[in-house]
Structure formats: structure tokens, C-alpha cells
């Protein structure tokens, strides 16, 4: 999974172009969210600033799944687009809390190396949070996806009752990543290694921009290259 934010989004023009078009194809053309429609076919909004974190799963250089994390210390969807879904309640905000938005997997490219791209995306998001030091994600989503988060190792907390927003049922939820959760997620989806592409070029940590993102020590790298003494498989864990 590629991680792009800050100046990298200015340098990686080819990839960002693919991301804007993928978002338009998915959210506008496929899901029919017409208020995001753009004449040039590139779905970009006010929140795609320097601080937005773009996470993309690529298959043969094409975007197969994508999501975006927004800092809650700056304007985000819950603060500026639909605060009413909170029904007057507060939600967690702060330097280590991000809002999880625009999460989608392609309906055309379903797998990479035999693993579902949607699973790779979600597991990649959790791994990224642990690597970067994000302790909470605020998500506004359909109740059924709360069930999937609960089943796949996220600790969750409902923030406000579900409500209809523009004909979509949404419920605001906090999702907490953890090493145990990541292992569970890996086991359930058959992933046995790190998903973050941090070796091609250094990616700086959005929370502490002077430091590079470093892989988690307890997850095997994609190609262990003999460093791991033992194979990493989680087959013994129960779902």
C-alpha cells in the first residue's frame, strides 16, 4: 500500500492523478454521489490539503482500493460538512486522532496475490495507524460496516445514534487500532506480512514530520529475505 501526504502529493503527480480519477469513478459514477461530481472527472474536495493522508492499494500500477485520513485537529467532514450527525454530542479530536473517509475498493480489480484488495486496504489502514502513532480513527459509516470492524479486530465505540444523511444511513464510530487487532485482522484475511510500501522511498510521519515512518518490528516485511528466523503465519489463531 502506498502512503502519500504533504509534499509527496505534489511530487507524485501521476499517482495522484490516478487517485482523483479513481475517486470520481467510484463515488460519482459507481455510487452516484452526485454532489462530488466534477466536470474534469477528478474528485477533489476542500479537505485534500497538504495534511490529508492518501492510502492506496495498487495492482499493476492501477489503483484498486483507496482511502483518506484527515487530521481532526484541522477542518474535517464531521466538523465542517455534517456536524448534525453527532446530534449535539462531542467527538474525539486531537493530534493523534484522524477521520477515516472515502474508503472504497474497486469492483473490477478484486484481488492482489490472491488476497482481497478490500482486506488489504483495511489491514493497511490499521498497520499505518500503528506505524504512525494514530490512536483513534473517527468513522462515519453504515451500521453494517460497524459489524465488519467489530469482527476484524477493531475496538469500536458508537458516538451517536444512526441517522439518515442524504438518504444514507450513517453512524459515527470511533475505531481503535491495536497490535492484537492487527494480528487478528491478518489471520482472518490470510495476510502474513507488512502491507506498507515504505522501502521504495522514505515516507515522513505526518504526526512528527521530521521522522521517517519505520516498519513495525513484530510484522514480517513483505519479503523477509532470511532475516526472520521463523515463518510468520497466524493459522493457529481462532477467528
Amino acid at each position: 500500500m502506498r502512503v502519500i501526504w504533504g509534499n509527496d502529493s505534489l511530487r507524485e503527480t501521476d499517482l495522484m492523478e490516478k487517485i482523483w480519477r479513481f475517486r470520481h469513478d467510484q463515488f460519482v459514477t459507481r455510487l452516484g454521489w452526485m454532489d462530488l461530481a466534477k466536470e474534469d472527472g477528478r474528485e477533489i474536495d476542500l479537505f485534500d490539503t497538504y495534511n490529508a493522508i492518501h492510502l492506496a492499494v495498487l495492482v499493476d500500477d492501477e489503483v484498486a482500493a483507496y482511502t483518506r485520513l484527515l487530521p481532526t485537529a484541522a477542518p474535517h467532514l464531521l466538523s465542517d460538512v455534517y456536524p448534525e450527525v453527532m446530534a449535539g454530542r462531542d467527538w474525539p479530536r486531537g493530534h493523534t486522532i484522524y477521520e477515516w473517509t472515502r474508503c472504497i475498493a474497486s469492483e473490477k480489480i478484486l484481488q492482489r496475490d490472491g488476497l482481497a484488495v478490500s482486506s488489504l486496504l483495511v489491514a493497511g489502514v490499521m498497520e499505518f495507524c500503528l506505524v504512525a502513532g494514530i490512536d483513534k480513527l473517527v468513522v462515519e459509516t453504515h451500521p453494517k460496516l460497524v459489524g465488519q470492524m467489530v469482527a476484524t479486530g477493531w475496538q469500536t465505540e458508537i458516538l451517536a445514534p444512526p441517522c439518515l444523511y442524504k438518504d444514507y444511513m450513517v453512524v459515527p464510530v470511533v475505531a481503535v487500532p491495536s497490535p492484537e487487532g492487527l494480528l487478528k485482522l491478518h489471520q482472518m484475511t490470510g495476510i502474513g506480512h507488512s502491507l506498507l510500501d515504505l522501502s521504495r522511498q522514505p515516507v515522513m510521519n505526518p504526526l512528527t514530520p521530521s521522522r521517517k515512518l519505520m516498519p513495525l518490528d513484530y510484522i514480517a516485511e513483505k519479503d523477509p529475505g532470511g532475516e526472520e528466523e521463523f515463518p510468520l503465519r497466524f493459522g493457529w489463531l481462532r477467528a
Partner: protein
Amino acid sequence: MRSAIENLLFDFLTDIKTLDEPAAIMERLAKVAGFFGLDSFAISGIPLPHERIEPYLLLNAWPEEWANRYMTENYVHSDPVIYRCKGTDRGFVWSEAVGDAPIGQKARRVMNEATEFRMIDGFSVPIHSPGGIQAIVTFSGEKVDMSEEERAVLELIAIYAHKQLRDLIPREKPDPRQATAQITARELEVIHWAAEGKSNWEIGQILARSEKTVQHILASAQYKLDVTNRTQLVAEAFRTGLIR
């Protein structure tokens, strides 16, 4: 002002975390079902085509006679509600989702017989995991008269009730030989220093890693060896011969 439905949801979410027996969860869910005018409910895993439902049934608040008949007659494999659950990932009202669909004779019989027990309509929630359908949480009564928001609330309640129930089932102890084989060299190194009585900060200094990283590595090792604290981890590492 908080609405009744809002209180129902948040009171349930607060309570459910503290309930550690199926009977208590059943009693708590009965209160929720009653709020919506539904009087029977059940939570069950989905058996494979050649299997029976009994070992999958996690919670059963059906009328006794119906529960007996459902199991004796092996109705689970003809039940159109179960069938429908396999094909959707959202909660649904029976009369809307399977009401008009052409169904087989046996499926029709299941639905008809259920009405004898005042299970005329219902609301069912499929619980999915990445591997596919995991379970169904189902409520039923004489009629289902719920707004979109109320359905979403009951769907969330179903999700958390199922999760709590699943967490109560003791996890099978992993085979220790297999479990120790999952421990990575890095984890072994950290366990070794923890056994020497070093703190996370000290281990971090020795291995040139951050305290937080050490904490994560230990948490991962604990998870793999199925223990919950540092002392147990060290004991288990000695017991299984990981360290000597």
C-alpha cells in the same frame, strides 16, 4: 433531550460490556426486543449444508415448542430467512425481503408454521466476517413496525450482542509447540530481556528501539502465547522452552 431510542441504544451498549453469561445477555436482549414489540429472538452460527444447527445455536429465546420443532425437523436448511442472510450484508425485515419472493414448498411450510408461534414477521441481521457469513441475529413477533433509524439501532445492538456472546466462548488453547513457532526473533530477544527483569524503557535502550515499540513487541508475543501479562509471558516462555 435524548430520545427513547437513543437511550435504548446507549444503555444497551453500556450494559452489554459487563454481561458475562449468556442468560444475562438473553435477559438484556429481551428488554430491547420488547421495546420494538418483538417477543422472540435467537442468535446462531450458520451450519454447513450437511450439518445441524444445534452446535451453532448461541442463544435461543424462541417459544420452546418451536425451537424443538425447528431442530428436530432440521428446518435451518429450508428456512428462507437463513437463505436470505447468506445473500445480504444488511439487516432486513422478513416480509419485505422474503415476503413476495418465490420460495419452495418446504420454505413456505417453515414460514407458515412459525406464524402459529406468533412469529409472523421479523427483523434479521446477518453478521459477516471477511471469510463470509458468520452468524444471524434474528428477532420476531406479530408485526415489524420500525423506522429506518430504529432498524439501524437494532442492527447495531445485534452486532454488539453477538460480539459479546462470541467473546464468552473460551478460545481454544493453541498448541504450544505451534504457538512458540510464531514467535519472531525480535520478540524472543525482548522476552529474553523481560525475563532478566528489564523494563520496557531499559529494553528499548539495550536494543536501540523506542519504549513504545518494545511495548508493541511484547503485546504481540503475549497474544501469540495466549497470555495477558508480562509475568505470564515470561513463565510461558520458560515452560515451552522458548527461553532457558
